[in-house]
């Protein structure tokens, strides 16, 4: 077991961030230039961190596997970003956003981190406005907001249905400005394949240039991972195709603890699966639940009828029925499970009976079609393009899909992992969302980490370190490079019959069925055994074409799938060992008679952070106990 010191500052929860800043060590501007910081990833977290650190004067090197930093997966976020601005005078406050996020996470997040997140949320909006992010406005010219799942307030700021795009472009432009000034050196189409650890400290990374195939190393005083989530371990998800676990998983293999991998979020409003060829699932923004009502037929006999033929009295608006105070805005995990229940009960609609209706009839009657089109027009268009159906005329069909991963590398309050010098921000870390994330809070966390937390905490840590990077011909660098090259060679030499995509599809299906929306002891054990089997087969039956020199998409894919196969086992193991239900983790053995999740605070009010012990050894489950100073965990009720 390792010790996981959260380094939470002293004081009451609302005072902690202020207390940290009071005591934070500083580095004078002239000296900052002597420190090199590597940032891997250019999503909201990585782009905002790179720009902000470069503005402070650090020498920043930033990497992404995309052809341009602007294409990171953050670009796809639709719905919005939360902030405790209370512009609507509807009772919002930092405290309330903090409480909602802690409760939304089913009391499995660290209080101090979440409070800080709520505090800086207000600065994010100001910063983005100053950058020229075109937020939605009211007629008076002030910022507009709307409500989102899991909240009874309107605290979500948005840019039509493209909030992630606009926030990312804001951060990307700030990054572009620093690249132009020569403060950031940008390496696009460059994939990090290993972390270099020297004497227990993160000292650099090994990368592969995806165009030339060249493997090389980069040294730094600190390494920041902002590489996003691992939802694609399930193969089908709402994530972009390129999202993968490689950077964080390789860091795990080098000693970083991986926290709560079993906390995965399933989003209730996605377009249902239509066939085997499908490469990804498409999310319909949750904001649709503001005006859309979710229902299934009351009677199984009605599932194949045209929805307009089913009278009101024969419709089961099950979210409104079961959760009257939150209704269609119940949190994601709860809404997803309710949809699964309805479909398991034989009342699902559409192909395979895996779908529920999202109906805008009432809202169109109340507000008119034009108003609905103004709010969600692009989402209705997207739905029609994919399904060929018109959502204004016929209720949309939706079904849950994997969407977000709360788990990630363990970090302390300062966002540093247990490997000194390795910082982790954004979706890649585990820190703020506990066992379930509320809508519109991932964008908030990514930008909070990058703009307003890391610039302080990283400076604080660096102030205690002598500047100066190691030469990249240091033995540890050469060793890591050689291992990477060896691994790629192994993949290229595989002359089997199955493609990496086939392995990915197969392993994803195992996880979705056994460690998806509902899990049991037996299903988790089966998943581990089956993934292990698949991993063994992968090594002698994989087909990869081409060479290591030059752009080789088959090789890139195989390399990522290899990590997914191993990481999937860790995820299932974590799900197996967490003998309770909380947030996105639902163990069928642990539920109340009415089917609600049964948390076990006595035994599981902790973070499980796994450390690697070698290829064939069982990893160690380390524990960080959660403390409750500001709030008292309660049964999470949305009734």
């Amino acid at each position: 077991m390792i010790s996981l010191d959260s380094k939470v500052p002293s004081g009451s929860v609302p005072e902690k961030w202020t207390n940290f800043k009071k005591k934070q060590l500083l580095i004078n501007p002239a000296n900052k230039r002597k420190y090199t910081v590597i940032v891997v990833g250019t999503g909201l977290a990585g782009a905002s961190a790179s720009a902000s650190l470069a503005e402070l004067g650090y020498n920043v090197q930033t990497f992404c596997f995309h052809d341009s930093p602007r294409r990171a997966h953050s670009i796809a976020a639709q719905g919005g970003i939360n902030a405790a601005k209370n512009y609507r005078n509807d009772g919002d406050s930092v405290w309330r956003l903090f409480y909602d996020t802690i409760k939304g996470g089913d009391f499995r997040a660290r209080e101090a981190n979440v409070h800080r997140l709520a505090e800086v949320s207000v600065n994010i909006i100001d910063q983005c406005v100053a950058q020229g992010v075109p937020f939605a406005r009211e007629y008076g010219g002030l910022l507009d907001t709307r409500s989102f799942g899991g909240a009874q307030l309107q605290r979500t700021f948005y840019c039509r249905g493209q909030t992630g795009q606009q926030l990312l472009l804001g951060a990307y432009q700030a990054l572009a400005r620093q690249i132009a000034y020569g403060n950031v050196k940008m390496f696009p189409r460059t994939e990090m394949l290993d972390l270099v650890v020297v004497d227990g400290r993160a000292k650099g990374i090994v990368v592969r240039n995806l165009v030339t195939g060249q493997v090389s190393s980069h040294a730094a005083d600190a390494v920041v991972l902002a590489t996003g989530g691992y939802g694609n371990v399930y193969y089908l998800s709402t994530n972009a195709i390129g999202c993968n676990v490689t950077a964080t998983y390789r860091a795990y293999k080098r000693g970083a603890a991986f926290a709560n991998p079993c906390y995965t979020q399933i989003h209730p409003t996605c377009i249902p699966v239509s066939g085997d060829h499908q490469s990804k699932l498409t999310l319909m923004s949750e904001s649709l639940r503001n005006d859309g009502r979710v229902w299934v037929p009351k009677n199984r006999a009605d599932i194949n009828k045209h929805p307009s033929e089913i009278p009101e009295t024969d419709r089961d608006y099950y979210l409104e029925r079961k959760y009257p105070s939150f209704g269609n805005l119940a949190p994601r995990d709860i809404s997803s499970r309710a949809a699964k229940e309805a479909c398991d009960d034989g009342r699902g609609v559409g192909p395979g009976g895996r779908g529920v209706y999202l109906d805008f009839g009432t809202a169109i009657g109340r507000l008119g079609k034009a108003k609905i089109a103004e709010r969600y027009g692009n989402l209705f268009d997207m739905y029609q393009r994919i399904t060929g159906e018109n959502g204004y005329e016929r209720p949309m069909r939706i079904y849950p899909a994997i969407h977000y991963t709360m788990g990630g590398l363990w970090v302390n309050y300062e966002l540093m992992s247990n490997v000194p010098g390795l910082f982790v921000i954004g979706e890649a870390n585990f820190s703020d969302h506990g066992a379930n994330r509320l809508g519109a809070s991932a964008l908030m966390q990514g930008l909070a980490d990058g703009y307003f937390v890391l610039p302080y905490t990283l400076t604080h840590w660096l102030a205690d370190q002598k500047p100066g990077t190691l030469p990249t011909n240091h033995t540890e660098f050469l060793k890591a490079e050689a291992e990477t090259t060896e691994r790629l060679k192994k993949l290229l030499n595989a002359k089997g019959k199955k493609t990496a995509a086939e392995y990915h599809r197969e392993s994803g299906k195992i996880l979705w069925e056994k460690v998806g929306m509902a899990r049991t002891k037996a299903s988790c054990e089966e998943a581990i055994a089956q993934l292990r089997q698949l991993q063994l087969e992968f090594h002698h039956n994989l087909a990869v074409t081409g060479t290591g020199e030059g752009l080789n998409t088959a090789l890139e894919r195989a390399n990522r799938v290899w990590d997914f196969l191993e990481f999937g086992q860790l995820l299932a193991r974590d799900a197996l060992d967490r003998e309770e239900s909380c947030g996105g983790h639902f163990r069928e053995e642990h539920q109340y008679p009415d089917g609600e999740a049964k948390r076990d605070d006595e035994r599981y009010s902790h973070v499980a952070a796994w450390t690697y012990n070698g290829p064939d050894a069982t990893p160690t489950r380390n524990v960080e106990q959660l403390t409750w100073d500001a709030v008292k965990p309660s049964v999470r009720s949305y009734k």
Partner: protein
Amino acid sequence: MKFTLHIWRQPGPEARGQMMTYRIDGITGDMSFLEMIDVLNERLIKDGIEPVAFDHDCREGICGSCSMMINGLAHGPERGATTCQLHMRSFRDGDEIYIEPWRAKAFPVLRDLVVDRSAFDRIVQSGGYVNVNTGGAPDGNSLPIPKADADKAMDAAQCIGCGACAAACPNASAMLFVAAKVGHLGSMPQGQAEQSARVRTMIATHDREGFGHCTNIGECEAACPKEISTEFIAGLNRDYIASAVKSAVKGEARGGF
């Protein structure tokens, strides 16, 4: 459905490329165009042939990665859609489909259908931002912005930077891309202070990167998956003239027209 695909294959940046023909069947109308290529690539790998390389990521029309000329049209026949949003139901069973990379001097081919679009990043680096550092921003509501202006900014800001405008333009001009960024920032007070300098530096970089001149043909708007209007180019021209006049009067013109 069955198709005959003619695809540009080019092993590397310096290598010679050529069209190769592949026949494919078992395609259904609800597959996206990229899923159709996935099917082909799976088969190629199994036959020991390298898959067709192409850029893609979000597969929902927002990241701007995917980029193909399909039967001579940037992103194919569907208006207002990227390649990843194009579905095979838009084609007839038995069609021959020609698939090529973006063709523009400023977008060199790296492999098959993958091109280097870093020129766009350099255009943004030359002024496509508001000069503010992190921290110290005033309250978001201290600067009311008329809804019409914010909406106009958003119309322009939707650009996904895919490069279809330049690929579709007979002159390989990327003026719609430049105009979208300039139009976004210039429609809001935050961006207005630097608008004059921005227009000049971004256009200068655009030209230096090897994109052609805009002669108002309008192919770009037709190809743009976000249907960004060429009216933003008209606005750009107005700003450019104003900026050039201003700098000439002040005697600080560098290069002029």
